[in-house]
């Protein structure tokens, strides 16, 4: 099966693949941070009693969650330059570059998914905690940042990390706009050298090792968090 399997091509392309991996990891980390921040805001909006806040947030989250990531990437690739031209009033304004476009697309897409996780996390905090915080004289902001969110996030860490592992896998889809992430780098070398079998299997192996150890880490973390519960 592996007769004629050329390991040399993998070894020679390692530096280039590493560049791609840095792109993938950077995109994942930044989109994760941005997604969690915006997701938290969206979750607080959805839970707000002001319909002016909760309806738009709900509509955004449900809409984004019902369309494919690739379509979201296409949407932002089209919308960002239009918006920049509108905002600056300059019809020749240059874009913000492919990396930042991808970053915004992933952040806004993942924010919708993080929002639902965070909303469930906030709702898992006993109602009495909120009442107690208000009874002690804390304001909404203080109750949220000092009482509710810390407890909510503690419950959510495992599932937030699991979602981020899926996000890491999803970053490979920047392929559709021609960016060179890890998969993009592997694909370019595969086509240049005609070594599709080696490069794609190697890419699969690398993704597997990273994602499998990631989920294993989450599993041990979960076991540790569950000590002393129930």
């Amino acid at each position, binding site marked *: *099966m592996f007769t004629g399997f050329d390991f040399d091509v993998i070894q020679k392309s390692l530096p280039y693949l590493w560049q791609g991996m840095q792109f993938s990891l950077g995109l994942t980390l930044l989109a994760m941070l941005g997604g969690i921040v915006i997701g938290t805001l969206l979750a607080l909006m959805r839970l707000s009693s002001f319909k002016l806040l909760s309806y738009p947030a709900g509509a955004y989250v*449900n*809409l984004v969650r*019902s*369309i*494919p*990531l*690739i*379509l979201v990437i*296409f*949407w932002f690739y*089209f919308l960002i330059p239009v918006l920049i031209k509108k905002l600056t009033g300059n019809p020749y304004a240059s874009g913000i570059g492919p990396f930042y476009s991808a970053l915004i697309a992933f952040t806004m897409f993942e924010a919708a998914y993080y929002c639902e996780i965070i909303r469930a996390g906030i709702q898992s905090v006993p109602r009495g905690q909120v009442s107690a915080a208000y009874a002690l004289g804390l304001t909404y902001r203080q109750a949220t940042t000092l009482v509710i969110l810390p407890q909510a996030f503690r419950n959510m860490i495992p599932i937030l990390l699991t979602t981020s592992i899926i996000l890491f*896998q*999803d970053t*490979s*889809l920047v*392929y*559709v706009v021609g960016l060179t992430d890890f*998969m993009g780098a592997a*694909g370019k070398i*595969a086509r240049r050298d005609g070594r*599709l*079998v080696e490069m*794609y*299997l190697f*890419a*699969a192996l690398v*993704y*597997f090792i990273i*994602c*499998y150890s990631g*989920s294993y880490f989450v599993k041990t973390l979960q076991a540790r968090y569950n000590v002393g519960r129930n």
Partner: protein
Amino acid sequence: MDFSFLNQPAFSGGGVYLDWVISGLKWTLLVSILGWIIAFSVGSLLGILRTAPVAWLRVPATIYVELFRNVPLLVQMFIWYFVVPEIVPKAVGDWLKTQMPMPEFSNAVLCLGFYTASRVAEQVRSGIQSMPRGQTSAALAMGLTLPQTYRHVLLPMAYRIVIPPMTTEFLTIFKNSSVALTIGVLELTAQARQISEYTFRTFEIFTVATIIYALITLTVTFSMRWLENKTRVPGYVGGSSK
């Protein structure tokens, strides 16, 4: 917004651009539904095997699930399309490369099916494991064999419990069907991009595609909620509590 371009003659194919949208929708639905048939049957089998009391059934199923869950769908798509024909025996590989009907479409269905099967397996497993242990013990004590226990006691309840997460998985395969565009299946997202390139009506055509995806998602969600109420076991926790 001006949607009149949908009625203009298309660049190729003889019809209007609306025909491209409909054809894209057809391929999206075909890939999703055929893929789902594979995912549901293979996934159910794997999920049951993962709860089996003997290791030689459990371990292969676990390896399958971990392998397919931890490699990105795009990579799996390329492996089905580019790598599999090269590493199978030569006669099979030649058939895959030259004789296989609609190679892009078939590979996309296989890839999505076997990828989603790993996710379905996890739902089936968690459904079975959510049943109280006493159910299995009672069934075995009454003289049912293990397959009978699964068939008449565990699975009828487990499948009802997992209707909501199963709905999510179906919607996942439906949305993931857009990844098929990377190997050249002209499904809805691919057609939307193609139309935007020919007509420059990017905003409008993306809106059309978004509305179609959202409508199908809504329809599926509501019909599954109906099914969930219909199959609900009286007295059992769950159902469509908001």
